[in-house]
């Protein structure tokens, strides 16, 4: 992706988006209680929020790919990052009665990497695990010491066929294009995850079974004693 081009386009999109969002918000306050009008205006508003997220992620991705983001190499405590990722996904999980569990060793040492970037990886993975789950399902985030800090996000969701696992992380690739509407999202979350992990010298392992669920796993080096 041409980084300058993406940056320019992203900026150009923000101004009309500001108008769409502001006018929709304003109308929602003006038109009163007709539930259908409220619903339709709500769609305009939430879609403009989604478009904003898409612009932010595109911009972010272009920066990562151009090497313009310098990832830090600092000691990072994992537990708070996991907690924050779960907090972000919790409202959506509650809505679908999905339980999120964690298994983190109490004496977990710090890993080495970029805290903000790893936060984004975890947030995207947990969000996906909730989004592509089934009502009443489960999400488990497990951390263990295994050749570094091994982090695993497991869901009891809809799963993916093998060819989808292969293509995961391609920009705008959707496992099932028909559910774009129902789950929202931008189609870039997994690409961002893969790029960040690659920049950390590691990669995402994916196992999935249709109708059973998926497991996403990656390993990052320990802050101390690593190479």
């Amino acid at each position: 992706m041409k980084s300058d081009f993406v940056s320019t386009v992203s900026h150009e999109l923000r101004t009309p988006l500001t108008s769409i969002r502001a006018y929709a918000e304003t109308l929602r306050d003006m038109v009163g209680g007709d539930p259908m009008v409220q619903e339709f205006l709500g769609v305009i508003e939430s879609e403009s929020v989604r478009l904003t997220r898409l612009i932010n992620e595109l911009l972010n991705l272009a920066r990562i790919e151009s090497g313009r983001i310098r990832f830090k190499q600092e000691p990072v405590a994992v537990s708070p990052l996991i907690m924050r990722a779960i907090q972000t996904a919790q409202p959506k999980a509650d809505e679908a009665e999905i339980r999120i569990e964690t298994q983190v060793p109490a004496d977990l040492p710090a890993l080495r990497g970029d805290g903000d970037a790893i936060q984004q990886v975890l947030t995207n993975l947990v969000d996906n695990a909730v989004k592509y789950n089934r009502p009443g399902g489960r999400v488990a985030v497990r951390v263990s010491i295994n050749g570094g800090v091994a982090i695993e996000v497991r869901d009891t969701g809809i799963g993916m066929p093998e060819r989808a696992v292969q293509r995961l992380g391609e920009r705008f690739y959707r496992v099932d294009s028909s559910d774009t509407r129902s789950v929202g999202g931008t189609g870039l979350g997994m690409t961002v995850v893969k790029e960040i992990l690659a920049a950390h010298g590691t990669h995402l392992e994916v196992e999935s079974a249709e109708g059973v669920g998926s497991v996403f796993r990656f390993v990052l080096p320990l802050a101390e004693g690593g190479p």
Partner: protein
Amino acid sequence: MKRVLLVEDDRAIRRIVAHHLVKAGYEVLEAEDGAKAFDLARTTTVDLVLLDIRMPAMDGYELADRLAADPITADIPIVVCSVVADEAKARILRAKTFLLRPFRVDELVAAVHEAVNAR
């Protein structure tokens, strides 16, 4: 009544932001570029400048510099709302708040309240 100078080249945004500021009890002066805004700021009393950065004629950076250099306008608080809010942070040090587009209108009105009342 406090007076806000709204500097914005996009007409649709100017219209909706002015609508909300008037509703919130402000008098609003509008300028679609930096040059016109500078004239207004010098010739009338203004309590706050709400500033876009990317504009034709005179951009937000130049306007901020000119306002700062003129004793009549140097103390007017500034709120920036722009697509380049992050970049502006480094260049308009005395601005109170930097809102990245797309902002929420209630967020913008709150930022204006705060900047005017902190004066």
